[in-house]
Structure formats: structure tokens, C-alpha cells
């Protein structure tokens, strides 16, 4: 049987993943707290975190459930937030695609923002890594991150009920999302997409079943893609002159 374990790559992954405990834990804690505030039990909250492992999508689903949006709208909106995972999957395929089926399935389950970002950075920095080294590095990154995601979701769910309403936790979700949106606005196309999304969400807020958000999402995506195309053409024209 082939071994996919390389000790030094694994340890390097663990070391690089360690600082992300500080990012993941408060986020998981907050999800636990907000979920129990919304009426979920400790068991439901932990299952949610363990099955989905995607903070932004989980917060989205929670918010829409609180608004009594139809089940299908909740699922579609939350999955739309997670569409970036498909991009991560596509970009890791050239590196980890040759793994056996069940290992690829396990990579997929543990594919989150942190494991994707660190792994692609490492694979680009060291192009001559073997499959075993790449796999070990990937799972090294996950080792400190994932257990803390479970643990702090659980802690948040357990302390959630004891937090007083004066803490204005209703606003924890918008603040968390806004904090994530800020760093995402990397280019003019991202800013334009966000701007159109906000305008449509407010303009179409009268639509039933949170359909305004669907309109905003589609309009934002098309805007981002079109602005990107325009910027590329504009840059090409500038080079030609």
C-alpha cells in the first residue's frame, strides 16, 4: 500500500495552521451563541457545524430561518455563499486529484478557506512537492483548525443561553459578515458586485420569500463578471497604445 504520509510536510502544515486557531475559534464560538439564541439545541448546533463546516453559509441559513424564509430559499442562499468551495476544489484538483477516491473525499470534507489558502500558497512556493508531501501538508493545516471549529461551536452553544440581551447580540451576525466582506473587496469588480447586491437587496426587499436576496445575488455576480471583462479589455487597450 502506498504511503501518503510525509512527516516534515505534515509538521510544517500543522505549524502554518496554528495561527488560524485564533480566527476559527471566535467565529465558531459566535456561531454557537447565535444558533442557541435562535432556538437551536446544543446537539443541533454541533451537528450543523460538523456537517457543514462553513461559517458564512451557516450564519446565512440561521438568519433566513429566523426570517421564516421558505426552506428551499434558505438552502439555495446558503449554498450560493458556499459556491467558492467549488472554485477551491477546481484549483486543488491538479495537485491532489491523483489521490485515491476516499482520500479525495476526505480532502473535500476538510476543504475550507484556511486549508485552501495555505495549501495553494505552499504548492505554488514549492512546485516540486510530491503527492505524499502535498497531502501531508494539507492535512497538517487541518489538524489544529478543524477540532477547534467543533470544540468552540460546542462551547458557544453551551454558554449561549446565559448571555444577557443587553449585549446586543442581534448585531453579531451583520458585524461578522461585514468584517468578512471588507477583505473580499479586492478589485473594482468586487466593489461593483457588492454595490449592486446592496442596491438590489434594498430595492427588491418588498419581494416575498427573501427572493430579493436571490435577485441581488444574481445581479451582483453578473455585475462582477462584466466589470472584470471590461477591466481586462480596458487594460489590453492601454497596452496596445
Amino acid at each position, binding site marked *: 500500500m502506498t504511503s501518503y504520509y510525509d512527516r516534515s510536510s505534515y509538521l510544517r502544515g500543522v505549524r502554518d495552521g496554528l495561527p488560524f486557531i485564533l480566527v476559527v475559534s471566535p467565529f465558531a464560538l459566535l456561531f454557537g451563541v447565535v444558533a442557541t439564541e435562535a432556538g437551536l439545541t446544543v446537539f443541533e448546533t454541533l451537528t450543523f457545524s460538523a456537517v457543514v463546516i462553513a461559517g458564512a453559509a451557516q450564519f446565512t441559513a440561521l438568519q433566513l430561518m429566523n426570517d421564516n424564509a421558505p426552506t428551499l430559499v434558505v438552502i439555495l442562499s446558503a*449554498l450560493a455563499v458556499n459556491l467558492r468551495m467549488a*472554485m477551491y476544489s477546481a484549483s486543488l484538483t491538479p495537485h491532489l486529484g491523483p489521490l485515491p477516491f476516499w482520500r479525495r473525499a476526505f480532502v473535500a470534507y476538510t476543504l475550507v478557506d484556511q486549508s485552501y489558502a495555505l495549501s495553494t500558497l505552499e504548492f505554488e512556493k514549492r512546485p516540486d512537492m510530491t503527492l505524499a508531501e502535498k497531502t501531508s501538508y494539507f492535512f497538517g493545516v487541518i489538524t489544529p483548525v478543524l477540532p477547534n471549529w467543533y470544540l468552540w461551536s460546542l462551547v458557544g452553544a453551551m454558554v449561549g443561553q446565559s448571555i444577557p440581551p443587553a449585549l446586543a447580540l442581534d448585531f453579531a451576525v451583520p*458585524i461578522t459578515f461585514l468584517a468578512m466582506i*471588507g477583505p473580499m473587496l479586492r478589485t473594482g469588480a468586487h466593489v461593483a458586485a457588492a454595490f449592486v*447586491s446592496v442596491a438590489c437587496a434594498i430595492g427588491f426587499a418588498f419581494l416575498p420569500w427573501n427572493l430579493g436576496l436571490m435577485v441581488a445575488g444574481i445581479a451582483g455576480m453578473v455585475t462582477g463578471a462584466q466589470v472584470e471583462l471590461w477591466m481586462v479589455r480596458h487594460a489590453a487597450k492601454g497596452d496596445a497604445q
Partner: protein
Amino acid sequence: MIDKSDLWIIIFAMGIGSFGLRFLFLGLVGDRAMPEWVLRHLRYTAVAVLPGLVAPLVLWPAATNGQPDPARLMAALVTLAVGYFTKNVLAAIFSGAGTLFLGLYFLG
């Protein structure tokens, strides 16, 4: 109040869906390249959905019965600005929460 049978449907649909998205290319498509126009739209999904989700929550908070609230508006602006300029999610969360508490304390 959240309906419990809907909740379990949502948890498992999201679990299967999220895993499907993560496994889509790694597991099924293999090394084939995706069409560029698909990638171009996928790049903007998060910035297209999240701002639209947040905007009504910021403008019409449920805690104030949908009335715009200066403390919450200020907190939202500070969070977004700190996140944009520092690229640091935690710094943005703490600045936003700090602004919200100061705002609620001084503006009521």
C-alpha cells in the same frame, strides 16, 4: 421560532450540498479545465450574496423594530472600513463591536 423538521432538512441539505461543491472538481471532474465564463461568475458569488444579505439587517434592525439605528449604522461602517483597510477579519469584528457598545452607551 425555527421549525425543527425544517431545520434538519436544511442541515442535511446544506451538508450534502457543501460537500458536493467541495468534491465537484476534485472528485468528479478531475483535471479538465472549467469554462472561463463559469469561473468568472464564481469569483463574485460571495461578494454578490453577502452584502445583499447584510444591507437590510443594517438598515432595518429587528432589535429596533425595523427603525434605522445610529449606533448600529456606525458600527456597520466601522466594521466594513476596518475590514477593507486592514484585511483583518478579527480586527474588524472587534472594532465594530466596540463601536456598537460605545454607540449604544452614549446614544442610548
